[in-house]
């Protein structure tokens, strides 16, 4: 056993040596190092230098390539040494010493996309070859290489595969896929056929195009037939998952619509106030996130969580002030309310422009909200959307609980059904109005927090959502939060189903036409409110 390992090691070194000698570049690794640390080098020269280094056996190479790939590689203007940025310190690539000079003498090594792509491949190769790394990491690297290696690289991988088959069968299997994906380009029909047989088990869209090509153009008829079969299989899996994806996108768009509209359900539906400033209350919520992140610059995630109650309070208080100073004088006069609140919305927008300037503000997306969970190669769920769906449900059920089981909820329902009767029973309708409006506005603030993660935080944020919000509320039946939920989800899913078929523009138009026809048939929406006063 030991003997075998020794032989493998010898073979491995030999193969590295062969690779070195096979590369025709005249660069030595020191020269390559100098090319990379020189500001004047062209991108092509740098790329060649990186290739030279990756073939050399210098110890620092994996670190250097990894740093370059992540834009963490710096050169010193003073002595042309390379430094790696890690944990806020700059380490010399060769000696690992911490850089002690002035920070502005260090400049980032500029790379372009082509170099970035090559470095990514090189670093995947290095990961594969590094036996000290975990098997999972190496499997991941193998997976990333499928369809990206040439036949000559594949022979290098064959060696790793053969040495790891006994200890790491899963890695070997993934390497088989990588090698087979390279073999698809082989001149020999038999090799292509063998490669396809291996790849038929691999359920990944990365090779769809390749199979389609073979199905159409291969010289060998049996290859064409076989490729056609795999291609059909893959396409049907792909279209199944894109259906699932559309549904998920629809639900996530729906939850954004519900979040934006649910506060309006309270103010418009329950209180009958046409609040054109609803969008601006969302905008205030989004700006609250920005301010909180400015206050806690090192902890954007915590700032975001804290801004949930903050936004509720800030927007809620703004809402109460609007109600106390303007709207309470205008109850029962919808047109004047509309105009007054429209005026307020302009005031708030221009106010924000004055305080924060007209430019959009950069709200940081915390790490736990960026990226996606990969279900398989066809389908992944983005974290931000996933959390917004959860957030929407949480807000929805919390609101439902307040309306059903709290004193405020009871009073709100009483006042909305019959104001005079409620007052006779001792309900202070003035106070209830202010609190209800505050509640609706606070929820708008919460929607703003969610939107800050998805879209621009700028003075126009509200305008983009106000029409959609009214659409959802009217479609759902005013005053009914279940109606808002169902309407929001319906519109979201319908939008996403139509979008790939009809395009974003036409899709939106079709939705609007659909809602108009629906409202003509059922003017009170999906779930009309019942009550004594409902005709008012």
């Amino acid at each position, binding site marked *: 056993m030991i003997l075998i390992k020794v032989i493998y090691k010898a073979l491995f070194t030999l193969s590295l040596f062969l690779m070195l000698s096979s590369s025709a570049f005249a660069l030595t690794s020191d020269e390559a190092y100098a090319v990379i640390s020189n500001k004047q080098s062209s991108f092509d020269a740098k790329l060649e230098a990186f290739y030279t280094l990756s073939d050399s056996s210098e110890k620092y190479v994996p670190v250097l390539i990894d740093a370059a790939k992540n834009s963490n590689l710096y050169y010193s203007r003073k002595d042309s040494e390379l430094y790696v940025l890690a944990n806020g310190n700059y380490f010399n690539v060769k000696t690992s010493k911490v850089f002690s000079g002035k920070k502005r003498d260090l400049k980032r090594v500029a790379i*372009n*996309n082509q170099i970035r792509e090559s470095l990514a491949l090189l670093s995947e190769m290095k990961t594969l070859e590094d036996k000290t790394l975990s098997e999972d990491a190496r499997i991941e690297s193998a997976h990333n290489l499928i369809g990206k290696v040439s036949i000559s690289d594949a022979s290098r991988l064959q060696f790793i595969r053969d040495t790891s088959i006994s200890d790491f069968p899963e890695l070997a299997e993934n390497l088989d896929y990588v090698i087979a994906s390279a073999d698809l380009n082989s001149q020999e029909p038999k090799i292509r056929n063998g490669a396809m047989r291996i790849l038929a088990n691999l359920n990944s869209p990365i090779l769809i195009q390749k199979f389609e090509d073979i199905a159409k153009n291969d010289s060998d008829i049996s290859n064409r037939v076989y490729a056609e079969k795999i291609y059909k299989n893959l396409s049907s899996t792909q279209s199944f998952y894109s259906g699932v994806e559309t549904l998920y996108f629809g639900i996530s768009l729906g939850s954004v619509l519900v979040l934006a509209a649910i506060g309006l359900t309270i103010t418009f539906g329950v209180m009958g106030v046409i609040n054109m400033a609803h969008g601006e209350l969302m905008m205030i919520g989004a700006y609250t996130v920005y301010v909180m992140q400015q206050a806690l610059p090192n902890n954007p995630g915590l700032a975001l969580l804290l801004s949930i109650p903050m936004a509720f309070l800030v927007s809620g208080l703004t809402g109460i002030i609007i109600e106390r100073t303007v709207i309470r004088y205008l109850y029962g006069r919808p047109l004047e309310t509309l105009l007054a609140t429209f005026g307020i919305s302009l005031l708030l927008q221009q106010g924000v422009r004055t305080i924060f300037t*007209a430019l*959009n503000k950069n709200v940081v*997306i915390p790490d736990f909200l960026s990226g996606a969970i990969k279900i398989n190669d066809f389908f992944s769920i983005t974290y931000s959307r996933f959390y917004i769906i959860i957030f929407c449900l949480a807000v929805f059920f919390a609101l439902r609980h307040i309306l059903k089981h709290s004193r405020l909820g009871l009073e709100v329902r009483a006042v909305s059904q019959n104001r005079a009767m409620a007052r006779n029973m001792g309900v202070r309708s003035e106070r209830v109005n202010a609190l209800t409006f505050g509640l609706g506005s606070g929820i708008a603030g919460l929607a703003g927090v969610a939107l800050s993660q998805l879209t621009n935080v700028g003075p126009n944020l509200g305008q983009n959502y106000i029409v959609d919000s009214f659409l959802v509320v009217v479609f759902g039946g005013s005053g009914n939060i279940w109606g808002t939920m169902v309407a929001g989800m319906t519109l979201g899913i319908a939008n996403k189903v139509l979008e790939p078929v009809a395009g974003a523009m036409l899709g939106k138009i079709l939705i609007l036409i659909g809602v108009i026809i629906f409202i003509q048939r059922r003017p009170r929406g999906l779930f009309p409110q019942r009550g004594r006063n409902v005709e008012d």
Partner: protein
Amino acid sequence: MVKIKNLFAAMALSTVVATSAMAAEDTIKIGVLHSLSGTMAISETSLKDTLLMLVNEQNKKGGVLGKKIEPVVVDPASNWPLFAEKTRELLQKEKVSAIFGCWTSVSRKSVLPVVEELNGILFYPVQYEGEESSKNVFYTGAAPNQQAIPAVDYLLKQGVKRWALVGTDYVYPRTANKILEAYLKSKGFSDKDIIVSYTPFGHSDWQSIVSDIKKFGSTGVKTAVISTINGDANVPFYKELANQGVSAKDIPVIAFSVGEEELAGIDTKPLVGHLAAWNYFESVDSEVNDEFVDKWHKFIGNESRVTNDPMEATYIGFNMWVKAVEKAGTTDSDAVQDALIGVAVPNLSGGIATMMPNHHITKPVLIGEIQDDGQFLIVDSTKGTVVGDAWSDYLPGSKDLISDWRKPMKCGNYNVKLGKCGGSADKK
């Protein structure tokens, strides 16, 4: 009491008379027509500030023709018909000798008939779709052949084989994409290699489109996205790209409307490597640019404010106007229009911009990659400058048209084949 009131009135009156008399004699007025409120305020406000800075500086040097320049700032509020009204006000009431303004193509189209009717001069500082040439408009932004076509050439060099054209639904993206589609087809690509999609202004839900791009681009063939998405909609688009893990090394996005200012509202770490094509970047390495950026920071009082391409175009336009007025020796509209052709001024990337007879200027084309500090790293640039072409060579209706506003031709759409002016159905 009455006396005091009268005294005040008299004083006020005399000052008004004095200032207006001074204005008539000692200043030359220019109009600044950029939205300071509404959706476009985000982009246009900095152009207004740029102009005020340039005027300020020119006045310190002694103004023009020995007179001070007086900027008249109006706010068309991102409202297209209001652009036309404000133009009329600037030309008829304020009698400005030139207008610097507009951003969107639709605002320019709305201003166009008014400047033509009143024979004014408009400097338009933003990249646009071309297919237009007016006696009264001077285009200091890029025509498609100074931005879109070189960008595609760069991607072709990078081995891109499939193209997703994504844009906002209005005149600039529609025309630019039409030109690009024709250009790509002339390079041997078929309909299967190109997908096109349009979205409404301010589109914020990019899930499906990004997912489609990802599907289109992750089948083993090198794919790039050409984005003509306008303004605000870019932020959610890039956020969605980052979320779905579309990185620049897999599917690079090259944008024609995303500059330093648009990036200021985004966390650019996940976007490193995505591209933009412009004629100027703040990161351009030249002495004039360093000087300009310093002056801008000083003027605006904020070190973190960026400069961008339309600001450079404004800078060029203003300097061209100053030079032309001095060359003509008068602010008379026709004389300045004639004098402008052939005027050459330095641009900010260390070269020279010349006003051509078709009222477009010469520009270098730069391709930049987004960096994590919100700036661009220039990865490719044309050898010299490129002459702006008003009529695209890749569209059937316009490839025979040329524009030359010198005497004796004096025509914006001369049809070379028919040998006469006004040879196009799209008469300008």
